[in-house]
């Protein structure tokens, strides 16, 4: 993605987990065991090239590009999640945001814990 480390200070660090089956497509080398959980540590610049702060949209594009060997099309189309995948931010459904804020425009905070979970249908 068109981001680069810049003079705005240290990187923004978030953790990303994948669950519900979409995890099967994630490159193993992207994941590490942290306190019993397999997660990806993602670093983004605090300001993108257009000087805006990284959002969920930026994260989804970054993850799609860097964390998937194949099956990225099951995760997202460009920078939006495919139907059937929920984003969870700090243990809450990402739709629980301030009124009027597009969920994709949620501005990532340092140490945010994000989970992308694909919905299951089997039984």
């Amino acid at each position: 993605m068109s981001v680069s480390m810049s003079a705005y200070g240290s990187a923004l660090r978030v953790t990303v987990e994948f669950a519900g089956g979409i995890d099967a497509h994630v490159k193993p080398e992207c994941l590490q065991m942290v306190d019993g959980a397999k997660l990806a540590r993602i670093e983004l610049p605090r300001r993108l090239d257009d000087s805006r702060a990284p959002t969920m949209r930026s994260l989804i594009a970054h993850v799609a590009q860097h964390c998937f060997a194949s099956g990225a099309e099951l995760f997202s189309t460009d920078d939006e999640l495919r139907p059937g995948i929920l984003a969870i931010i700090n243990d809450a459904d990402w739709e629980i945001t301030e009124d009027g804020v597009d969920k994709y425009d949620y501005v990532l905070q340092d140490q945010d814990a994000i989970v992308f979970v694909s919905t299951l249908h089997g039984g």
Partner: protein
Amino acid sequence: MAAAERIAQVRARLAQLRAEELALEAELCALEPEVEPEPEPEPGSIGGSNLSRDDIQRYSRQLLVPEIGVRGQARLRDSAVLVVGAGGLGSPCALYLAAMGVGTVGLADHDAVDVSNLHRQIAHTAAAAAAGARKTVSARAALGRLNARCRVRTHDALVDSANARQILGAYDVIVDATDNAATRYLLNDACVLLGRPLVSGSAVRLDGQLTVYNHNGGPCYRCLFPAPPPPAAVATCAEAGVLGVVPGVIGTLQALEVVKLLTGRKAAEPPSLLLFSYASHPHFRSVRLRPRSPACAVCGDAPTVTALAADYPAFCGAGPTDAAPDWQILADPAQRVSCRELSRALQAMAQPDPQPGSQPQPDSQPQPDSQPDSQPQPDSQPQSDSQPQPDSQPQPDSQPDSQPQPDSHPSLLLLDVRDQTQFEICRLPGAVNIPMDQLARRRAELEQAIAALRGGPVYAICRRGNLSQLAVQYIRGTLGYAECYDVAGGLVGWQAEVDEGFPIY
């Protein structure tokens, strides 16, 4: 009489009784789809509560719990709960509902018991699988054995747009214990239109999910998932597998959520999604969910779905069962061969000395030859990238024809494109395993194997002849090698057409 002889007699008698029980249950099911519970003893006449003496004894340990008590128990007794899907989720859920004293339990399923169900669908028995019993009949027998005071209604039908209202309407709570997206959307919409809470569970592989929809200002299924997932992203238990206890965990928790709904406890809880995984630590994670969406197509302020007229399978791009797909990707039938044709090709190159250890051995025909090959076998190294092997996992017992035979070249390549886990379950002798999703990455290896053929044919095979068509497209298209054919029907077809001793999973 020798003990061994008596043991054999008793076992035979038990098997007979088990089969007989099912036959009788099926007959009863046809005569009275609704079990009339044992007559109610005089309630409340002695002791002052509105529970009968029998109920007080039976549910005493539950009555002692203040959150349940006499009031909660009476609520359970006076309630009707429908479990849609008498499978891995529905089995434990329905068993617990009946055991705990829910007065009426409905069972809806359109399927018969199969032996591959038994590792997780614990309401059913080996006898039911052997007899091919209806799941409703088999599960009704299980509930009846547990608690004859429970009224069990069976609906031996696929719940669809036409019958959903009528079936669901008679129940207070609906449990979604189904196995496919189309029925999940249908049940959601029916519950919204009927004003019923929906206790939704799901499980695949090592993961489970649980949510109560359409309750107390919380979201419905469509609020969370307005659009269905692409069918390619939907994993079913039949294709992706499932660890038996995982739906057991979720189905049991569905019964718990039903109790909370019936006692009123659930009204005090904000909407949440419970995630379970075998692999995660801790196993459970609860996520807060959004409230009902005003823009939702069915439960929103201006709904567009106002009746169950929709074609749910078309909406989801997949049918209402987890039956295996039957893809027709290769338009040209000349690019596919039957299993019999493959068998003839393998026999034509057969050598008199069969490879030891290759399995399974078709016993009804000469051993198709493992292919002699001067190249190292592509599958001789366990793949460590996408599927790390558990420590205790035995390696494939044989690497077919690993001895180099420098003076010969293989006359054909049998390319098995299933993942390594499936390849280890069963395979044809001589098959070379490169999983479909690794073909591009292992292109050099594949091209080397094809070059060694000196023009000989490549046969691509998989479980059912679906994925292997993509492999043929890749080899013909990207690699430009036209002597490449799909084995139509795959290994399932091999069992049906060539060797009935070949194991199928």
